[in-house]
């Protein structure tokens, strides 16, 4: 699984951090998404798919 984030689209809703905090964080100065691990292990795959699904700005893309 490979995760790609689009910082320009991100609106700092924080939903990805709630869904998968080992994979996503937010930049402190403006809340923009920070990708901690672009190749998350299989045990986090469901959480990461959920993070992409709840991102209101569609800023997270997953390549399986």
């Amino acid at each position: 699984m490979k995760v790609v984030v689009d910082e320009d689209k991100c609106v700092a809703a924080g939903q990805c951090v709630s869904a998968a905090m080992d994979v996503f964080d937010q930049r402190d100065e403006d809340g923009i998404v920070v990708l901690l691990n672009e190749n998350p292990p299989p045990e986090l795959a469901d959480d990461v798919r959920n993070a992409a699904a709840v991102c209101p700005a569609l800023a997270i893309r997953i390549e399986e």
Partner: protein
Amino acid sequence: MTEADVRLAPDEPVYYYQDDRDAKCPYAPPPGLRALNDEAPISRGRIWDGSTPWLVTGHAAQRAILSDPRVSSDDKQAGFPYPNQAMAENAPHHPLTIFNADGADHTRIRRMMTRPFTRPRMEALRPEIQRFTDELIDKMLAGPKPVNLTTALSLPLPSLMICALLGVPYEDHEFFQKHARVATTSEKTAEDDRAAGEALGGYLANLLQVKMETPADDVLSDFAARIKAGDLTLPEATLLSMILLIAGHETSATMITLGTGLLLDNPEQLRLLRETDDPKIVANAVDEILRYLTVATFGQRRIAREDFAFEGADIKAGDGIIVPLPAGNWDPVAFPDPERLDLTRKATHHHAFGWGIHQCLGQQLARIELQVVYGTLYRRIPTLRLAVDRDELKFRPADALAFGVSELPVTW
């Protein structure tokens, strides 16, 4: 009459949006609104001014339309479906805000407001939210009963938190809560609306000037620094502060009061919150209660920039579009048996905070406030119950910007 009206056959039945809730099920969306979804995910509705914008009620359709760049939030365009007359009259004077800006303008404004509300920052506030909650409950238990939950807990907690974040003195809460109520009600004149805005604006502009001289570690001081640096003007910073102050307490307060009413009507579900100390179970329960109640009943308002086909509908440039969030949150395709409150249901994909780039900025603060309150109140007061018959509760009219009940007398 708008252009959209012309294309409706004169005898075509049109749903009146927004009709009232069923008095027997005040926690559920209006039955007529729910029924629309059985026909199609998009239909027409008539609003207060007689115009007939599109109503997008299906959950998947709401996601699609709220992410569609052919749809605009610009409330200065003719045909925009305003929630009420006061807002329609004042719209030409509205400056650009996170609510009515699109694209790059929206991104620029939003990014100036996001820093204090990130998930990690909100998580760090949890102990303080817990402390305020415990203190308010201590005070409730020490005082007379019955007590109105709204004034004892629902309103003070989010007000204390947003004041601390912004750097607004909580001692002034009666002043700003009074004006915030005008901003969020539909029962007002355009003049009342302007007067409330001017009173709050004057107050916040004054505070911003104080913060320019003596900054502290708070959001208003951030804005004050941006004014000094030339990135923001004083009127812009005043407006951003006002949005945060109003949105920061009124909606959370409504959710605490209304959620408690709903849970007292569903004792089996309430038991789950009373008996768990697992933060994951509480967090899940909060999202289900958010889905179920969806207090932002007025819906997201939009206008089409161009002609396009959508879910079988023929949308034209200039058509008003309303996205009634409660309908999407009760779409049985997305949430099977939507009328069943099930605190174990996976509901994080609900639209209670909206969807798309305008999704609620303060949602992580709201979630943690609700997690702390719902996770604490019923455990500390297991015998909590309504002090009046449910029929006596006075719900706000269906067209209020946030649905709710101002008084919830409880005892234990």
